[in-house]
């Protein structure tokens, strides 16, 4: 895949689409990042498009419920749980304003 394929890419992405996905993923992007990602995503998505050729495959995974007794056991203390929080107050995590 080369830059010259870009025009032909079946999944051309524009910076607005990148921005929409970034909103869904809660990641701010600069103008430059959105533009660079749009170009790279076109290449990558074009490559992913070959998955279209994959036949439907029956798969029966070995799945099983894993159960355990519902017993109280030690966990992190309140202090330990808060130890890595950028901000806490009176034993609580402090988050952004709810608006």
């Amino acid at each position, binding site marked *: 895949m080369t830059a010259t394929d870009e025009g032909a890419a079946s999944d051309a992405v524009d910076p607005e689409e990148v921005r929409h996905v970034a909103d869904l993923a*809660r990641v*701010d992007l600069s103008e430059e990042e959105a533009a660079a990602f749009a170009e790279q995503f076109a290449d990558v998505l074009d*490559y992913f498009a070959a998955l279209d050729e*994959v036949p439907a495959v029956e*798969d029966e995974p070995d799945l099983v419920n894993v159960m355990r007794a519902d017993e109280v056991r030690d966990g992190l203390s309140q202090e330990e749980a808060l130890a890595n929080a950028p901000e806490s107050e009176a034993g609580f995590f402090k988050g952004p304003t*709810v608006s």
Partner: protein
Amino acid sequence: MSADDADAPGGDAAAEDLNIFLTRETVEGDADGPLSGRTVAVKDNISTEGVRTTCGSAMLEDYVPQYDATVVERLLDAGATVVGKTNMDEFGMGGTTETSAFGPTKNPVDPERVPGGSSGGSAAAVAAGEADLALGSDTGGSVRNPAAFCGIVGIKPTYGLVSRYGLVAYANSLEQIGPFGRTVEDAAALLDVIAGPDERDATTRYDAAESTPGASGAADVPDGVHPADATDYAAAADGDVDGTTIGVPTELVEGADDRVVDVFEDALADLEARGAETVEVSLPSVEHAVQAYYVIAMSEASSNLARFDGVRYGIEGGDGNWNESFAAAREEGFGDEVKRRVLLGTYALSAGYHDKYYKKAQDARAWVKRDFDEAFAEADVLATPTMPVLPPKRGESLDDPLSLYLMDANTVPVNLANLPAVSVPAGEAEGLPVGMQFVGPAFGEEAVIRAGSAVEG
């Protein structure tokens, strides 16, 4: 460090020059055990109580876990000494250790070149003599790739053999923690210590799993017994391949660099001289393995990394409402490759695209599994070059993500199929190490360890 280490390529100065460790801190095991006297470097996405664990990310620059990962508990219980936390591609996302927020690690064999990744610091620590052993994690090759590029041994265990409790998740349906050593026996001895069921990771339970039909190499264990409890991996490193059938998947040899293929074929010829038989096998599905792997890994990453919101840990997002604050924290805390994968994963799972990408990737994953099952009806283990290329120079491929992804062609099929594999040094080309990969049936660690140890001669 003993006095005679002064002249070794290791040494503290070397470790700093190569940027191997992100945190240099010693934790002594408090018990006598199979690893007494051995030093172990631990990848920085494996939780260590009281010792900073960054995942190579600015997001977790100051994060200090409140508990040990199960594998770390087991290391210390076995008498090992942890010597530090090693550099890695950010959250495991990369194959060169260049995406670390703390700068790249250099390859001890040739400091102009990458050590591979994402567990590049761990592999470099062992190759440079900074540690006897190391732990990495392998989501799509992140143990085997740096083992190959640094000229050491790395094992990717069967999914479910080793507990992931305390491993910071990137793509949990694919990843396993795996050991590095300078010999197959060393790496296998570390696997003996870390393997086994853990009630804190339900995927280590074995009661339901049935071994692959016709898989002669798989561990023969009674029902309800975890394979790790019925095996001695170090003892399997006996070099005996007499009568072993080695399958060579043509698709995974054809695409490799000629210099790599030459070394690989010489090593195969050696094994034949020692009584192994080689047969060609075909895995037609692997043409789609890299695509399927990246769709699945990115999709899982987009969900797993949603936890980094700057509230419970990580970088604070500052003013604004929840959404604005989260988005600001993630803009600042994540590097380019992490953003790329979170965004592409979000895209692949978003309305209108799920069936086109994620569902097709799951079909491809099932197809890859089936192809391996069929190959193991004909062969005890499969052999391929671990990496299709020699270790690249630093900075060569960072701007072209797709070219980096394609480097994983031989390693990702193994993760898609949940299988065990080992990478062992097979020789050199132009003074650079070439790794040989052996893949076994589910829970067939002993078979790949045995075959790998035969390459060491």
